[in-house]
């Protein structure tokens, strides 16, 4: 039977790009549909009626929503180039940190870049504490997943690429080499992987979009 794989996404969204990264890493062919989130398509509303958000993966007509749920689905459905270890403890570890990134890091990073000026120093401190956890988790590994890119690396795409772009767009300084040498090295490795590199939104376009949407940031000169 011919497989039909659709991905509803948005060019600048790290969540949407996560799914593309996983599909590319596994060499899976898919049809990409760019959504305008200010003007959502009837298809998106049909496939994700609960949240009406991207990304949504539609595999042979069956939709899957929520980026981390999609990543698990992809790994369970296409077994080549696994993105999760077979070991339950390592799997739990990857899930724990992916959740940590989504639930804690993103909002903290945003606050540090575009939060209120009087809260800025505190916001930077809080974001730094969170990044420190990730720095420690990396240890001497090349990737969070070990020798190859795994689910946690993909989930950490926010740290690996978007964070640098947020910093440039807003003038905030978070991921410095002095404080986070391992994370910086990891970020370089991460964006060099071809399946990742091909799936990064253009930097200038993203900066322009962020500045337009969120302003020039707390620390912009």
């Amino acid at each position, binding site marked *: 039977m011919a497989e039909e794989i659709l991905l509803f996404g948005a060019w600048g969204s790290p969540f949407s790009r996560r799914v593309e990264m996983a599909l590319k890493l596994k060499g899976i062919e898919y049809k990409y549909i760019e959504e305008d989130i200010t003007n959502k398509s009837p298809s998106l509303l049909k496939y994700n*009626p609960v949240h009406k958000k991207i990304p949504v993966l539609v595999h042979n007509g*069956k939709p*899957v929503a*929520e980026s981390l*749920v*999609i990543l698990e*689905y992809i790994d369970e459905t296409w077994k080549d180039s696994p993105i999760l270890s077979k070991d339950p*403890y390592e799997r*739990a570890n990857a899930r724990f940190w992916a959740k940590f990134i989504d639930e804690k890091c993103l909002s903290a990073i945003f606050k540090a870049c575009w939060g209120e000026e009087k809260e800025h120093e505190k916001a930077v401190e809080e974001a730094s504490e969170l990044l420190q956890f990730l720095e420690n988790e990396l240890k001497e590994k090349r990737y969070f997943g070990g020798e190859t890119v795994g689910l946690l690396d993909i989930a950490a795409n926010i740290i690996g690429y978007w964070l640098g772009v947020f910093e440039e767009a807003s003038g905030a300084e978070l991921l410095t080499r002095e404080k986070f040498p391992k994370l910086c090295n990891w970020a370089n490795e991460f964006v060099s992987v071809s399946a990742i590199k091909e799936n990064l939104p253009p930097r200038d376009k993203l900066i322009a979009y962020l500045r337009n949407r969120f302003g020039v940031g707390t620390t912009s000169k």
Partner: protein
Amino acid sequence: MEEVKLLGVWPSPYSYRVIWALELKGVKYEYVKEDLANKSDLLLRYNPVHQKVPVLVHNDKPIAESTVILEYIEETWPHNPLLPTDPHERALARFWIKFLDDKSPTLLRFYLTVGEEQEKATKEVRELLKIIEEQGLGEKKYFGGDKIGLADLVFGFIPVWLGVLEESAGVKVMKPDDFPRLQVWIENFRENPVIKANLPDPHELLAHSKQKREVLLASKIA
């Protein structure tokens, strides 16, 4: 030899999810009661990032975050499966698990507010229950399909805690004729012998909820 410890707190739905999963699979474990006002060294060592419960410790390896723990339990003790085998159905179970946890502020708001704010919050939680009933549960007997699964354990908040919060807050979120399919699921959930044998004492839970609400509301006014 296997050593399984669960660090939890008594009235927490998050701790109970893990208890139910372990009990449904017949896994022997030692329950360690934590006092969140006075966190043990063990808790701080095993969950330095969040310093929260529940934490499962399996042969001295800690796992934190209830939904991560549930998946770990499912993978480590695969008998009596609590997730479907089909990847799409598994994805749906995970989607709804995330849905409930993401919406927990909305679920709790009616309990934490008074007056007009509470009225609005009550309306919002009813809308949520409608989505849960129509799109989450649908025509299925359980969220997991034919039998109880991880998603049911997470939605277990509704049969066990929602009524108590309603009573504490003096508000009816689910009236007798509302959400008929959800009501049937609630009955089935509560009748499951493992769940039934592992429920918090309802009187203690009510007393605790009432007291907690008083404290929370007083601190808001202050």
